[in-house]
């Protein structure tokens, strides 16, 4: 029955409205991030007599974070492909690998934030640090929400198996996760690499 409801508007060539709506949400989130990028670009030199952001950046550490997130984007895609093959153990396996890699990313980021804070470079320090923490923190918050979502989805795949509803939820999650990786490309380029240059 649920299949019938989900299929009712696939006549002709109309695309699925729910996923399209989620895509519009993602694009509006991109606009939100673009504003944070703009404010960072304007404020990144306003350090109020403190150290420059370039001196706080460890490029190798960020490289490892980037690798963890890029690999998680890849493994998330592999779990979508296993849904096409109706292979539930593999779907769950790749989702757990994605969760682990995303968890490593967040662990490293929180670690970086805590050490910056303890060294006295908190968001109170200057406009540059405020915009740094807002931009990178907002991305990290999105990843954290994505991790909770992924954990719930793994449980749903355990309980309900592969059905139209879980398939659709995984499609949303895969879209969200790919979007977060794309935002991170610009975070590591603009916030980290261009600062160090």
């Amino acid at each position, binding site marked *: 029955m649920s*299949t019938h409801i*989900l*299929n009712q508007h*696939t006549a002709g*060539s*109309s*695309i*699925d409205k729910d*996923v*399209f709506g989620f*895509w*519009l949400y993602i*694009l*509006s989130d*991109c*606009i939100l991030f*673009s*504003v944070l*990028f*703009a*404010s960072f*670009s*304007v404020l990144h030199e306003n350090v109020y007599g403190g150290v420059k952001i370039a001196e706080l950046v460890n*490029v*190798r550490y960020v*490289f490892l974070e*980037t*690798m963890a997130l*890029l*690999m998680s*984007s*890849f493994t998330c*895609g*592999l779990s*979508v*492909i296993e849904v*096409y093959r*109706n292979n*539930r153990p593999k779907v769950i396996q790749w989702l757990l690998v994605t969760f682990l890699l995303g968890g490593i990313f967040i662990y490293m980021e929180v670690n970086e934030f805590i050490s910056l804070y303890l060294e006295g470079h908190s968001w109170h320090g200057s406009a540059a640090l405020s915009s740094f923490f807002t931009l990178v923190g907002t991305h990290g918050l999105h990843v954290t929400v994505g991790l909770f979502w992924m954990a719930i989805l793994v449980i749903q795949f355990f309980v309900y*198996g*592969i*059905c*139209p509803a879980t*398939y*659709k939820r995984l*499609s949303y999650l895969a*879209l969200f996760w*790919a*979007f977060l*990786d*794309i935002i991170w*490309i*610009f975070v*590591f*380029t*603009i916030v980290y*690499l*261009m600062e*160090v*240059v």
Partner: protein
Amino acid sequence: MSLPHEYTLNQGTSKKTIRSYVIGFVLSLLLTVTAFGLVELHVLGSSQLYVILGLLAISQLIVQTVCFIRLNTSRDGLWNLLPFLFALVIITILVGGSLWVMYNLNYNMM
């Protein structure tokens, strides 16, 4: 426990395949390693490096939207592509406009 045969989810994107994911992953990896490598090695002047880093990031954006999200120009794909392009226009105006205004503001306050 499995998908009914008649069930399809029309996302308006190309079918995700192992091939598309592997190609996207390898290209992204190359672009990322190049970006970090250039910064670590200090082989270029800083103004050249800014331009190259920007181009590498934009290339990776294109690689990931084509290979991971699978945007395309088919009839259904346009539903996703056109809002995407519109969002890019908005972002260009927002970011470009903010930077332009703030640059002039700094200039005039000096």
